């Protein structure tokens, strides 16, 4: 009986993984297929046809796009870590009159969908002369209510004795912040870092609006472009592009999955 339920559970696990993971595996397989193979709806490539990968780089300036995405995602990640940890420090350690009002102000930003504010934001970055620059792709995303709350939750677990001890040691508040609080909260900073990098790397609508030429375009927009250029003829090439775009985030996710799950659960539920 026990063996039966266990094998039934394994069966369900394997079947669900197959259904969910199939599109990703299949994209990977198609990226090694020749044109005729794709047209005949093959499942497995007959050989490792790597020319698709070479052609991706010839069709669109993919290397440029990848560099852009890396610069933008890393910059947003660092910016968010700095801006959010500073704000979180206040909400955890510096009491003052009116702090709750500001906290509510921060909470209220969660109710504004980015898409509802995008028209004036586009006009703003346009008037700043930020179109086709890294600035428009990074700066608007540095402040993040979710990140502030996530870090605040963790900062609050720091024992108050530690704060007092630091004061006895003669550390001022800023020293306490970067010598004690930041190292103590490494885990939640990593969570926020992974989260920030993932979401920025995967951003679509905003880069579509603010980049109009190859110099600052991100990989996601490059993918759309590749698909429009190549779609009718070479799906293998398009899928090679897809694989290149998803590998960094999938790797990051696989490495940081446990961490991310723990951090996100804490941020979401508590």
């Amino acid at each position, binding site marked *: 009986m026990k063996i039966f339920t266990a094998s039934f559970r394994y069966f369900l696990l394997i079947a669900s993984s197959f259904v*969910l993971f199939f599109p990703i595996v299949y994209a990977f397989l198609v990226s090694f297929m020749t044109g005729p193979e794709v047209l005949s709806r093959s499942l497995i490539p007959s050989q490792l046809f790597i020319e698709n990968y070479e052609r991706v780089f010839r069709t669109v300036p993919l290397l440029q796009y990848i560099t852009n995405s890396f610069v933008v995602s890393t910059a947003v990640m660092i910016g968010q870590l700095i801006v959010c940890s500073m704000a979180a420090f206040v909400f955890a350690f510096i009491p003052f009159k009116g702090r709750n009002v500001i906290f509510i102000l921060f909470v209220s930003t969660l109710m504004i969908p980015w*898409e509802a504010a*995008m*028209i004036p934001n586009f006009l703003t970055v346009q008037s700043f002369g930020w179109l086709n620059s890294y600035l428009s792709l990074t700066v608007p995303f540095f402040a993040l209510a979710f990140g502030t709350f996530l870090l605040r939750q963790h900062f609050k677990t720091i024992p108050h004795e530690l704060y007092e001890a630091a004061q006895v040691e003669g550390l001022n508040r800023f020293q306490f912040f970067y010598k004690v609080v930041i190292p103590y909260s490494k885990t939640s900073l990593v969570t926020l870092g992974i989260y920030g990098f993932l979401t920025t790397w995967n951003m679509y609508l905003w880069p579509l609006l603010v980049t109009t030429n190859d110099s600052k375009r991100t990989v996601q927009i490059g*993918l759309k472009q590749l698909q429009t250029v190549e779609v009718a003829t070479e799906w293998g090439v398009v899928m090679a592009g897809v694989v290149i775009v998803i590998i960094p985030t999938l790797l990051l996710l696989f490495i940081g999955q446990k961490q991310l799950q723990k951090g996100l659960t804490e941020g979401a539920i508590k």
Partner: protein
Amino acid sequence: MQKYRVEKKSTLWRESKNVRVAMLYLLPSIVLFSIFLFYPMLRTIYLSFFLTDAQGTAALFVGLENYIYILQSSQFQKSMMSTFLFVLYTVPTGVILALFLAVLANEKMKVIGLFRTLFSSTLGMSVAASSVIWLFLFHPTVGILNSFLGLFGINSIPWLLDPTWALISIAITTVWMNTGFSFLILLGGLQNIDRHLYESARIDGAGYFYRLFRITLPMLSPTMFFIITITFINSFQSFGQVDILTRGGPAESTNLIVYSIYQDAFINYQFGTASAQAVILFAIVFLLTLIQFKFGEKKVHYQ
């Protein structure tokens, strides 16, 4: 919350030290929120009362006419209808699928870590990449979905070509994309449930389904509520999958609200009516988030 007793000779300047230091730390957040969230939101509401020129400058005050215009336009009505249908397709399916996977992956078993990783993998997939892959799977000639259905004797489905199916296709893509995140959060919620509850239930001889419906699901309800709200909000904000898979077609059947805003503003340069639609989107998301705070908080305390 600790209080500081400042010495007797405290002046206003000294008393305000905390405020000044706090403001310094909060400054970046407040400035950025003001420029990129609060100001644009007010500006969107303002623009929604105006006719604008192609540069987005308010040219003529028209009051509520933009709203009256869009509410009466068949295009917007259709867009709203598609959006609601889309939400109806994606939210229950997405949540139930993620719950099923989370319950399945919550047991302690060999190689369960591998399955958890596979189930959460779509969290690393971008909208663009996911949409391109599904565009391929749905394709009328090279798409493998129809050949798969053919194995079961099911006729080919005109996935992206038929108005009804196109919306369903976008919904399938969206549910697939959201599964990773929902799964991860629900699994976290499941793992937070106190083990002792199960042990005492087992001693009382409770069966699997009794434990599932009497312990797991009630204890999971705050997390469930959170995921339902997030899925709702995400559905209303879908854009990339529409842009890549159908561009709002066929016959505007997939012209979801954000795509409609995008088209009005950045293709037709109708910033006024686009802003009115953005205000409506804002109202919907605002309401959903408010409900989440009101009820979500209560349930967490209850637990």
